[in-house]
């Protein structure tokens, strides 16, 4: 669909142009995060030595997003697969790109172990407070009173527990060397810096780095562009209030 000879200056160089327009919904936060990740990969000049691992869920729609080596894994198993890859190819920059369900529900054990072992990989968790691809069910990160398809009357935190604080958990582990940050898609410049620092941390300090990104899901939140930004800035920002570099 692209014009011949048009290099699309607005794209990072690491993008795979033939797969654009990408497969995410209009206004999806994934597209913003991946764009910023693309620019970070360009800036660090690591396109040829990056391994990009994706999970089940909406994150898998990025299977042909970049012109970099990409692997897609079973649900919640992206972190251990990427860790394993790093063991045999220590010179590669390895990124695990997962949703909040994959990271904090089914894959939490793998995530904690990798963080505790200080595996030199970068984990990017996209937090949109629900399971997007399957129709917006409650996830560990669902906010108090948030309506999802499995909590039609709003999430009761007495019964279902508080929204899960991933970066805070990773930070509290005894591993002193890890890098932990939380970004938000409405601050794209800062997000790009956080992602870039996380990748640099993996490359230079040979240590674990973790970035959670507060993201949007206009489709399953059933809101307009304005509504998704309101939800992000008014509700999610308050619940997940520690932002920027945490460690």
């Amino acid at each position, binding site marked *: 669909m692209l014009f011949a000879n048009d290099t699309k200056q607005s794209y990072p160089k690491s993008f795979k142009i033939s797969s654009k327009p990408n*497969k995410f*919904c209009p*206004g999806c936060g994934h597209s913003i995060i991946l764009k910023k990740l693309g620019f970070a990969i360009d800036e660090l000049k690591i396109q040829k030595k990056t391994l990009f691992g994706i999970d089940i869920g909406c994150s898998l729609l990025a299977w042909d997003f970049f012109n970099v080596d990409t692997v897609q894994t079973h649900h919640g198993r992206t972190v251990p697969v990427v860790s394993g890859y790093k063991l045999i190819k220590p010179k590669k920059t390895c990124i695990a790109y997962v949703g909040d369900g994959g990271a904090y529900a089914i894959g939490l054990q793998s995530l904690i172990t990798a963080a505790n072992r200080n595996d030199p990989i970068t984990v990017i968790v996209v937090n949109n407070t629900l399971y997007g691809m399957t129709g917006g069910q409650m996830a560990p990160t669902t906010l108090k009173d948030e309506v999802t398809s499995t909590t039609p009357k709003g999430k009761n935190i007495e019964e279902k527990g508080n929204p899960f604080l991933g970066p805070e958990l990773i930070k509290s582990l005894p591993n002193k060397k890890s890098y932990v940050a939380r970004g938000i898609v409405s601050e794209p410049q800062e997000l790009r810096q956080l992602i870039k620092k996380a990748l640099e941390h993996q490359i230079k300090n040979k240590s674990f780095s973790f970035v959670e990104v507060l993201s949007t899901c206009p489709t399953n939140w059933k809101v307009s562009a304005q509504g998704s930004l309101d939800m992000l800035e008014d509700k999610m920002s308050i619940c997940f209030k520690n932002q920027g570099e945490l460690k």
Partner: protein
Amino acid sequence: MKILLSGEGGQGIQTMAKILVGAAYNQHYKVNYMPHYGVEMRMGISRAFVTISSDKITYPKFSKADILSVMTKRNLNLVKEFIDKNTKVINAIDLVDLPEERNLPTTSFNMIVLGIIVKEINKSNIKIDKEKILEEINKFLGKKPDLTKNRVAFEVGYDLADNMYSKLLKSVKPDKFEPIINKDDKKEHIIYPDICKGCGICLIKCPVGALSWDKNKKNFLGKPIPKVDMEKCIGCGICEDICPDAAIKVNKKSKTN
């Protein structure tokens, strides 16, 4: 009789298929229906594999269709492989405006195409009773306000002349999109309609309200795209930064690139 229905998600492909197999089943044919979507939540291509037969059906999918209906340009390459020399292709791409011309709601487009499909099926040895289809339409759309209009739309399709939908797929030209470039002496603002999904985030984030919807220009999904007011725009690049799909580029003239 193997029938492949295809179109955009949201055009009502799966409803058409359900109505069709429901009617055929009520006439004691053996039927099979298999929906096929992409993994995308939105903007995906929707297809339905329908088999209607007097004999046992052994497998739900097929590699070549007897009847193929195409309702959008976007999925042409996806359906071409199902065509062989015996396939009757129903090219409904140019019929999108027909509901409007006949004073019908745009959402009844699928019922028009369903009418054409039933007409084509009835040219074979399988005969689907029109009344049975109308019964199924009542069942599926009975609660919708546009019920009668949907029934009318079905009849419109059923009575449509063959040459209205027999244009060769080869002759369908894909949409061409040119970047929309606005320039003045300080800055250049480019919007790419072939990748803008019309989400509207740039309109909200622009600090001076320089962006608004351009009702006359369409993106690749047929939705409006933003247009820029160069008088107001200060060339800050915030829209470029936030656009999820990288569909905006802002160049300041002082920048060297």
